[in-house]
């Protein structure tokens, strides 16, 4: 592999989970570098990272999931990486599956490749409401962009240089970088593809969408973002339009 690939792992209170993805990548994606972004965790995630002897970036205050991922993307841009693989710190993603993303981006010429849990039938169990939300977002993306994306909320993604450049700019990576971001990128001419991936269930720690209020807030914000992108799409949609 001639390309420089960087795994970006956002971590918030992942003291007991973080060793799993790091060791998994070390064992199954040997040529890639790893950067873990500790988003001002309240537990001893930082200590766990030092013990693992893995590259890390440390936020002095909590910026949330998107802020942490964007920090990693900025690091990738600054260090001239060819590809960034977004990888969750809770052990849900598998490094062996990340190879599929890399192969896909190399062969398809896509700017973004998403690891999809729903492109083919896998053992991944999604709660009813989450599945409903995912289907709703997929439906809205289809209406806005005419492109079928089966898993727009998947955190497992590979980004090429052009996308790294774009996402690293201030204000270009939203608070909830899910369906809204995928729709926006598609509208502005970025090529987005999916590849079927196996993912695991979270075993320790708390999901960022845990509870009742957070998921509701998340769905409302995402639908609102999609509505804005829909309006943008009406006015600025042109074939191969890149901003």
């Amino acid at each position, binding site marked *: 592999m001639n390309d420089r690939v960087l795994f970006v792992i956002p971590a918030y209170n992942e003291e007991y989970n973080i060793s799993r993805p790091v060791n998994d990548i070390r064992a199954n994606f040997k040529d890639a570098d790893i950067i873990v972004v500790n988003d001002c965790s309240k537990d001893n995630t930082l200590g766990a990272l030092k013990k693992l002897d893995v590259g890390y*970036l440390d936020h002095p*205050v909590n910026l949330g999931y998107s802020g942490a991922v964007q920090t990693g993307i*900025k690091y990738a841009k600054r260090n001239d990486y060819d590809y960034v693989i977004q990888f969750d710190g809770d052990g849900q993603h598998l490094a062996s599956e990340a190879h599929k993303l890399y192969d896909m981006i190399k062969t398809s010429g896509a700017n973004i490749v998403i690891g999809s849990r729903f492109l083919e039938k896998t053992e991944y169990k999604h709660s009813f409401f989450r599945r409903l939300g995912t289907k709703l977002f997929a439906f809205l993306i289809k209406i806005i962009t005419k492109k079928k994306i089966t898993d727009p909320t998947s955190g497992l993604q590979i980004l090429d240089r052009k996308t790294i450049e774009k996402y690293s700019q201030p204000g270009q990576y939203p608070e909830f970088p899910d369906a809204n971001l995928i729709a926006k990128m598609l509208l502005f001419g970025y090529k987005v593809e999916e590849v079927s991936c196996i993912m695991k269930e979270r075993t320790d720690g708390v999901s960022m969408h845990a509870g009742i209020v957070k998921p509701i807030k998340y769905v409302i914000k995402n639908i609102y973002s999609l509505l804005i992108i829909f309006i943008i799409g009406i006015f600025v949609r042109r074939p191969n339009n890149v901003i």
Partner: protein
Amino acid sequence: MLYNLRYMPFVVIGVITLVVFIRHVIKNKFSEKESIIWAIAAFIMILSPLYMDYVDRLAHLVGVDYPPALIFALLFILVFFLIYRQSAATHKLNERIIELIQLNAVYEKELRDLREKVNTETKGKGKNDIAEQAVFEESIDA
């Protein structure tokens, strides 16, 4: 009487607003640029008796029975505008803070890597070399 009593509350509020904001600008608690819009609002209130005839006419034209209520409505719109401006300014500041925090994290990693490299290189060197490295490290810190 030039200053009709029914407009006196506006005049008093206007004068207080003006005095408070000028004091804050002098004490550097508030920016001169931001205070302009408040000063304009204060002057609108202070000078309200001078244009009350026009306010009366305008109030009747738009169907407001009590003319001072029209001034309140206009000030309400102004306050909305100010809140919008504040929200926009907060968003801009937020973006800048995020950028600073992210760059700080990246630079902190670079500094850590550099320190590690320096420490590795100093191992097994003579006293003079170590002193040179210490000066180099100090220059990095500075």
